């Protein structure tokens, strides 16, 4: 396969010419957070360039800048040595840069043909020639091997895998000179993935520059000519495929400082009695036969790359999803979880601390006090009225325990800092005296100090007997905080790690669905 790649690689004479696409000194700041810092990046025509990195390494920001979705804070971009500035995706498209985003850019109520020919439909004087549009859509669908999709069908009636192929057809319809794929194969069937590979190789032969973001090592193995590794907003290294082993790549992706900010883990001589145990939980094709248990006093981490089903698993346990199969036991007794109300009821006492605190966790215009007591308001009643006194006493106690810095508990929660807002969400669920606590990436976008307080709090809760299931995208937290870790991949649990085995190498490798031990012994890439 290596020879094949080399023969397809552009001739060496071009190497001295300036690169086709260049980004120089790119920095991107979101508020106080540095997403990219002084990044130089370049890619060539006729090559597939893979971009690798952990969650939050800056890959997405990089391609959003290239595709005109966000503007860089600093730095410049050059296309064929000419400086370009994009203020919208439209302008990037006009320059020949087309991006296939992870969150699809299709309009569900419109037909496939309408979607594919959205911006530049055939026709004249601003009117659309529907017949020509249908033929063009048919041709593009055929090019991606989707003859079975009727161009007149509405996109919302297509399964996710077909939609992703329509997205690819749509991108090809814009005659890109540089094509960016962000996890474009994540929802595809195996047969479709093969087709996409063939298309990408054809496009490479036609001289397109292709930027490819994927978390699947074997895809990179199969497709890429060049790889670039990103970490913490920095461009670490770019190298030709085959010059680094998988082990070395994983190390490049991790290699960051490890700070000791976690409370000590208690020794569990024997596994504690499970408070929550799940068997063969499935939901559509998003969750597959998940079995796991969380013991009393235990913190179990959920790891893996973004979007492998972790969020859905927590929602399923909390009774938000419909049509979930499998069994859930709480304290050894079968539990039916069909609504959040039931999940937080007296005999289950479960709490879910949601990921998006602004939309699912808080009522921003309402006061800190009202937010904290929202989920347990039923406890503070005198007849049908709210007993202000006992409510206030408990709220004050919570504010003190979590050291929420609000100034006044009557202030709207929207005026607090991100870290304090997150504490309010946690306080709200602690008030319900939950025994089973599900956390969905609770430390995202929070400063280190607050993070540390949250870790200590989780450990205290566990020591007091709570069972905690903790999903985080930060590997450090899995290692530092969790007694056991389950890594999810593609809707299933890929691997369970315990004790010493919870380390970065294992977590990253399992997240990417590759086995390191095997790799280092025989050096063969695994599918």
């Amino acid at each position, binding site marked *: 396969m290596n020879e094949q790649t080399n023969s397809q690689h552009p001739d060496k004479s071009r190497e001295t010419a300036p690169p086709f696409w260049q980004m120089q000194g790119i920095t991107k700041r979101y508020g106080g957070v540095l997403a990219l810092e002084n990044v130089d990046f370049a890619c060539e025509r006729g090559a597939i360039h893979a971009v690798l990195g952990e969650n939050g390494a800056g890959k997405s920001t990089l391609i959003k800048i290239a595709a005109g979705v966000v503007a860089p804070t600093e730095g410049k971009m050059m296309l064929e040595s000419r400086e370009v500035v994009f203020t919208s995706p*439209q302008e990037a498209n006009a320059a020949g840069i087309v991006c296939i985003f992870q969150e699809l850019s299709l*309009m569900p109520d*419109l037909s496939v043909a309408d979607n594919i020919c*959205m911006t530049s439909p055939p026709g004249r004087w601003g009117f*659309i020639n529907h017949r020509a549009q249908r033929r063009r859509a048919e041709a593009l669908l055929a090019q991606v091997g989707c003859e079975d999709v009727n161009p007149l069908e509405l996109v919302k009636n297509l399964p996710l895998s077909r939609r992703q192929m329509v997205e690819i057809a749509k991108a090809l319809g814009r005659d890109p000179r540089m094509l960016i794929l962000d996890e474009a194969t994540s929802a595809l069937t195996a047969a479709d993935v093969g087709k996409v590979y063939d298309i990408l190789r054809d496009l490479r032969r036609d001289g397109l520059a292709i930027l490819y973001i994927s978390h699947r090592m074997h895809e990179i193995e199969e497709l890429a000519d060049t790889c670039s590794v990103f970490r913490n907003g920095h461009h670490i290294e770019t190298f030709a495929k085959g010059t680094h082993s998988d082990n070395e790549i994983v190390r490049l992706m991790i290699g960051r400082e490890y700070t000791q900010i976690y409370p000590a883990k208690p020794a569990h001589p024997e596994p504690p009695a499970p408070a929550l145990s799940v068997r063969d939980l499935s939901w559509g094709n998003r969750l597959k036969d998940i079995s796991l248990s969380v013991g009393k006093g235990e913190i179990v981490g959920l790891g893996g790359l973004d979007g492998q089903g972790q969020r859905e698993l927590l929602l399923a346990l909390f009774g938000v999803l419909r049509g979930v199969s499998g069994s859930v036991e709480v304290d050894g007794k079968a539990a039916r979880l069909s609504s959040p109300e039931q999940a937080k009821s007296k005999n289950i006492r479960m709490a879910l601390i949601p990921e998006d605190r602004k939309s699912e966790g808080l009522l921003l215009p309402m006061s800190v006090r009202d937010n904290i007591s929202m989920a347990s308001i039923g406890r503070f009643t005198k007849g049908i009225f709210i007993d202000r006194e006992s409510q206030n006493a408990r709220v004050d106690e919570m504010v003190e325990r979590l050291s929420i810095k609000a100034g006044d508990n009557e202030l709207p929660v929207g005026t607090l800092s991100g870290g304090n807002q997150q504490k309010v969400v946690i306080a709200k669920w602690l008030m319900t005296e939950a025994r089973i606590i599900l956390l969905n990436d609770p430390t995202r976008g929070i400063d280190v100090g607050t993070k540390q307080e949250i870790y200590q709090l989780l450990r205290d809760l566990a020591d007091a007997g709570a069972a905690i299931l903790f999903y985080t995208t930060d590997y450090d937290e899995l290692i530092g905080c969790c007694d056991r870790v389950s890594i999810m991949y593609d809707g299933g649990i890929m691997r369970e790690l315990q004790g010493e085995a919870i380390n970065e190498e294992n977590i990253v490798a399992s997240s990417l669905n590759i086995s390191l031990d095997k790799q280092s012994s025989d050096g063969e890439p695994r599918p």
Partner: protein
Amino acid sequence: MKNMKLRISQSQGLLIAITVFVLMFTLYITNHPAGLTVPVATTAANKAVLLALVAMAQTLPVLTGGLDLSVGMIFILTNCLASTIVSGDPLQTAFGIVVVLLVGALAGFVNGAIVVYGRLQPIITTLATGAVYYGIALLIRPVPGGEVQEDLADFMTYTVFDVIPTSLLLLLAVVLIIWLPFRNSVVGRGCYAVGSAEGAAYMSGVSIDRSKLAAYTLSGLLAGVAGLMLTFVTFSGEASASIGGTYTLNSIAAVVIGGTSLYGGAGGAIGSIFGAFILRTIDDLLFVFDLPPLWQPLFQGVVLLSAVSLGAARVFRIKNRLELFN
């Protein structure tokens, strides 16, 4: 064949509206003492076309995911304006008509500009501008009255060749000259795209601002056509808040009955026309069956509720309950 099936399933809402209207109208005609005569049809058409035009005007903002509470007031404003300037010799009359339509379009454009550039919610924007337009209408015509070129008014409210109501031809012309070209234009499809998924439309390089502006401006123009027609029907102008309010609310009902989604992105003005026809026929049915006209709101409500329930059936297919709230 397969495409035919698809097209039918995609215009379900429209087809249901047409069927319901045909059934209701047949029931009306067969029970009418005179049967289907030209005067009966003309009277029915003149009343229905007014609401149909306002409902078409409402459809465009709704398609983009908005709502226009000012269509009824633009309708009243242009009515009052027409009762002062659409008269005199043919040239003056023609000039008056052009001015009335331009004022309608301008009112719509102002709505659009505030929504697009001011980034305000359409519902509150148009509630406010609607009050402003009504205020202007009152200034133009503090008391009911005025006049309109009589020959033209007669022609527009009677028949062509003694068989076809002229008002229906006007409606057909509006569909052919304004709606269908718009539907098939890049800007028009942009409106559907914006209503369906604004973020995806932006990512796809749709010019969102232009589409929304066009939708509100055309909406104003259509309301202006309706205001003009109202002047021909009543031979005068009247700044009546209750007429404006009733037309606004009925236009929203007609849009929904016609199969356009209030979430935006799906449906069309043809459906709204039939939605308006259905609402109007309810009146007529009460009349021929000798039921008290006071029952009209009740029947309208029942029809509207059934139409909305059909659209809400999607809720049963949702697997993630959080999506219910989006």
